[in-house]
Structures are given as structure tokens and as C-alpha cells.
């Protein structure tokens, strides 16, 4: 399951990344394999999304979220 497939309020645990370059950016922002990640909100126009991870909130586009595989 991908992060982009979560419903609002659902959460998952990060398993791996499918895009190496994106993974470096995401990890620097605290999205690490093993971290719990929860979909908080979707922007009014359907994209981007806001997730809470590692104790803070992060916004990212759906396309970027689709590179995060969840357990």
C-alpha cells in the first residue's frame, strides 16, 4: 500500500521508498522506514496532502506520496 492511498485519519508504517532521490529528501525531513505516518488532511483542490510523521506535519504532493510504500 502506498501513502497516497490512505484515507483521511488512516495511518501506516513506512516500509520503503520507490524513488531514491526523493527518499533522501523525505528521510531528511524525518520520514524514515519504521516511522508511523498518518494522513491528516487533503488540500481543498484534492492535492497536495498533509501527513503527520515524526512529531510534526508535512505537506507533499500525491505524486510524491506515491513513492512511499507502507506496511
Amino acid at each position, binding site marked *: 500500500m502506498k501513502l497516497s492511498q490512505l484515507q483521511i485519519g488512516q495511518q501506516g508504517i513506512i516500509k520503503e521508498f520507490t524513488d531514491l532521490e526523493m527518499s533522501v529528501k523525505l528521510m531528511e525531513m524525518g520520514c524514515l522506514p519504521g516511522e508511523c505516518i498518518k494522513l491528516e488532511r487533503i488540500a481543498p483542490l484534492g*492535492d*497536495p496532502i498533509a501527513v503527520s510523521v515524526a512529531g510534526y506535519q508535512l505537506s507533499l504532493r500525491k505524486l510524491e506520496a506515491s513513492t512511499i510504500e507502507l506496511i
Partner: protein
Amino acid sequence: MKNKKRIALVGNPNTGKSTIFNALTGLNQKIGNFPGVTVDKKSGFTKLADGETIEVIDLPGTYSLYPKSADETIVFEVLADKQNSAHPDMVVVVADATNLKRNLLLFTQIADLGLPVILALNMIDLAKKGNIEIDIDGLAKRLNVQVVALAARKSQGLDDLKKAIQFQSETALQASTIAVKSLAPEIISEVATRLNISNPYVALQVAHQHGNLKYLSKDERQEVQEVLQQHSFHSPKIQASETIARYSFINEVLLDTVKHTTVAIEESISNKIDHYLTHKVWGFVIFIGILFAIFQSIFAWSEYPMMLIETLFVWLEKLGHDYLPAGALTDLLIDGVLAGLSGVMVFIPQIALLFAFISVLEDTGYMARVTFMMDRLMRKVGLNGKSVVPMIGGLACAVPSIMSARTIENWKERMITIMVTPLVSCSARLPIYTLLISLVVPNKIVFGFIQLQGLALMGLYVMSIVAAILVAWVMKFILKSKLKGYFIMELPVYRMPRWRNVGLTMYESVKTFVTEAGKVIIAVSIVLWVMASYGPGDRFEKIEQKYSGPAYTQKFSEEEIDRMAASEKLENSYAGLAGKAIEPGIKPLGFDWKIGIALITSFAAREVFVGTMATLYSVEGDADDMNSVREKMANAKNAETGLPVFTVASAFSLMMFYAFAMQCMSTMAVVYRETKHIKWPVIQFVYMLVLAYVASYLTYVMLS
């Protein structure tokens, strides 16, 4: 004398780094540039307990030493290049105590660079509130650095930080964090030997970043390139394993030193606020409401201080005319410089308020939500959600706004943002709009509540934003780029604005505005006054001879002759001739040669318009006339037709011209510095001029 000790503040965004910086330096700070790049360098001075004064530099906020946007590059460059004039003796890493894990990533990177380092844990009060227990001494022992706990917003812990700085040893003592060398052993050792770098982590960073590092020579870059090719260096892969290694080190450290029991409370409050502020419908309604309220307040609150400034200048002008000896120098001083300055200084209250509101929006965290809401829309026209910040800032001034576009990682999105930001109506256009609207739009209220003049002004603002979006959409198809755009951004929790920061922003913006605009206006006023007061060859003598002949002296009174002579002199002065030269080109837009002169001078800066008009009409009229520029312009008649110069058609046409044309040298200079290529400001200048001409022409034809 020994140079002052210099410390650099480094940290993630939203850690309160600038609050600490402001608390340390107060008003004792200045904004300059880092050598060779235009990233704002905020520096200031602070006094330690032992009386020593040290320099403090605030480096741009970043999550890691690997830069994702243009201004983050500077962090590594300043820290690694010992020759850099901003290179610090010591680094203070500011970390958010409520989110230590992520914040320590940057700390471990900095620690490995081998500079003396202090760890400042900010927001310790919030961490306590969230039941996060941090063993500060344990952390200090484990990392072997000084660790200071702060609550900068409450001004707690600053003295401890100063003490730590005072007692910091001059050599780096921190424990090593990860086995850097094992990440890429051959590459690190070879880059280190070839470029003579002693620190292995600096060598690794150079291997990753060599293409962007300005302090490396061409040969050095070439050498690094060779090494990398030889060993088939895969940058993202090594970065990924480094990041993972660092996090496992951090986990180990935190396991012993931090007890984390519950999540911060603020988060849940923030979530509730976001439920409304980023709501499908209410989100946009609130956003538009906030913008509307800001503009209403800017006009309402600035009315009184503006009146005071105006009165002050009228008083100064009168004082000058009363007490200074009459003559050319007095005329220059009063009709040129003072008139020019007053036209602009009047706008200080509005500019200060606009900057204050924008800084409140950013400080509270609301701007990040606007970015979040608008990203989808902005992406459709080739922009990024983050383009909203420069575009809203463009309402104040395009220069800092274009610099703020650096946060946009994607080249194409950033370029388009830079290209369209100057279209957004900035505060320098406001004097022109206000003046011209008051000339031709009646001060009437229609439908009971809509003020006509205000409506016209708002129309101009809306039009400018629509134009910016349309141009962006066109550019989306013209600019080519294969790179993907990113939108990975932290949404900070809502916080009360730090009024001290807001105050400092206001103070800084007004200071910059007064000195920068003041310089240009004084220079332009003097040049213009000279050009309007002297003419080529013996034209002026001939005019005097003509009017002293009996054909005039018998028919007209002395006063009338003076006026006619003055007006013919202006027409034959250098400025007049320049205006006349472009008159055929601007006649279709409804402008005469006098407006032509204003257009020419306005290419230095728009706000010069009002001053130019003041100078031109004062040179022509008699000096005792204390009428305001507005009245002089209202009475202006076309010499040939005898009709008023400023009609609805010509005034709106002129406003269109000022709305679209690139009349700001500072903006062009900053676009050049930001894009590093002369072609961008040139393209921008040309497309905006074409747009201005067409819009003016259509407006004039339709309204007359």
C-alpha cells in the same frame, strides 16, 4: 587588532533561529549579501558577559547540508570555505527540542565538519509541556559538546547561551558521529589529497556538491569530476546510506537521553484550526477575507500618519522658500529634491503596514497553509504553491519577493515566479494610482457602500494578479525543463506572531525603503531639475529675447510673459527635448511630452513619477505657488488643444502603463543576480513593455 570572534547560527526552519538571532543582536543588525551570491546575510553584534563583542551570523534554515534550494547552498559554502569572509569561528546549531530526532540530523552533519560547535535546544518549554524529558547533561556528555536549553520566545536561556559561547574552546572537541570514511573510502581520500582538504566529511560533501560550490576553481571541479568518474560515484545512493547511518546514531543517542511520553498538545490545537483554515470552502473564503481586511486596514490606518508626513513636507517647503535666499540652488533643493522626496516618503506608513501584515502571515504559520491550498491551482499555470509567497509579497515590493522565490526548488517554477512577480502591483505604484484616480474618478459612493475611488484601485490590483497568472500560464508552454517539481514542505504548528520580529521587519523595510528610494529620488530629481532648467545652444537666450520684444511687452502683463517664457523654456530644455522626441510614440496612448519625461525618469523607479510631475510643474510655474502636485496636474492644459491633459482616458491609460511596464532598476538588478543571466531581465523588460503599450493603447481608445 585581533578580528572579532564570529559565530554562525544554523538550524532547521521553524526552530526559532531568527528569534534567537534577534534576541542576541536586537537593532544592532544589518542585512547584507554573502560574497558572490545574493542570499541575505543577516549579521549583527552581541556583547558577552566578559565584555567581548562578537559577530553573529544567521544562516538560512535548512534540514541538511545537502541543499534543496538556492539559498541553502550557502550554508555548506560558508562553513567549509575558510577563505569565505563569513566563515565562522564557531557554530551554534539551533534545534527544536520537541523534535530532536530530525533536528539532530543537521547537528551531526555540522559536527562532522570539524568546527567548534554548541547545541542550543530551543522551545524547551514546549518540550516539557509535551512531557518530553531531555537529559541535557547526558546529551552533552554523549556528544561531547556544550548543550544549552532555551525558550527564546520567553527570553529564557539566552545568558546561558552567551556563557557557552564565551567558554567554548577554539578547537573542535565533539565526538565523531558516524564512520564517514566508510561511506566512500577511495573517493574521500582522493578528493581530500587532490584538493588538500583535511576533514573527511568536508571532502565527501565536496564530492557531492562540487558542481554548485562557488569557491572551487574550475580546475578543482574538474579534478573532483575525474575522481568521481573513476570510482563511479552514485551521489543519491551514498547520501541515502549516510542519512540512514546518521539516524541510527541519533536513535542510539536519544535512547539514553530522551524520554518521550506523549505527543505535543499544540499539534492537536493546530489540527483543529486547520480544519477551518484549510477547509474546502471556508479555507478560500477566509483567505480572501484576510487579504481584503489587510488592504482595508492598510488604507484606513495609514491615513492619519500620511497626512502628518504630508503636512511636515509642505511646512518644510514653505520654510525653505521663506528663509533660503531665492536662486537656482534653492529651487533645486525645494522644487527638485524636497518635492521628490515628499512624493515618496508619504508612503512609509503604507509600506510599513504591508510588510508587517505579510510578516504576521508568515510568522503565524498561515502562509504555509495558503501555499498548501494553492499548490494545485498554481501548478496548473506552471507555478508552485510556494509561488504564492513571492506573489503576495509582490504587493509590497518585488525585490525581496523575487529573492524569496529561492525556496522553490524547481528551476522552471522558480523562473516563472521570478518573471511574473513584478507584474503584481507593488507599493511603488500606489502613489501613482492614488494620484491619478483622485484626478479623474469622482469621490462618490455608489449602491450605498461601494466607494468609487476604492473600487478603481482594487480593480487595478485584481487586474495585476490576473495578468501575472495569465503570463505564467503562457510561460509554462515556452520554458522547457525536464526536472520534476517538488512540494515537500513542513507545516509548522500555529504560533502567535512574535511582535518583536514583526517590529524589526517593519523597521528594516522602512529603513531600506527610505535609504534606497531616497538615494534614487534625490539623484533623479537633481538630474531632472538640471535637464529641465537648461537647454542646448542658445535656445534659452533666444526665448528671452523673443519675449522681451515689444510684440509681447505691450500686449501682456509681466506675469503672463514670465509664464509663457517659462513654459517655452521647459519645452526647449534637455528634458523637454527628450520628452518631445518620444512624443510621437506615446501620443496614441494619450500622453503628452511632459508625461513622456515622467515615463523616462520612471524607468529608474516608478515612485519617481510623482516627484517628476512636481519638479516639471514647479519649474514651469512660479515658485511661491504652494499648490499641491495634484492641483497643478488637474489644471494642466494641452498647449495645442487647450483641453485638460488628464482625462479619464489618458489617466487610466497612464495607470495601465505603470501597471505593466518594468520601471524599476532594482528589480531588474535583482532578477539578473537571481537568474545569473542577462537574458532574463531583458526578456522581462521587453515583454512587460509590450504588454504596457498594448494595454495603454486599448484603454485609451476604449475610453476616449
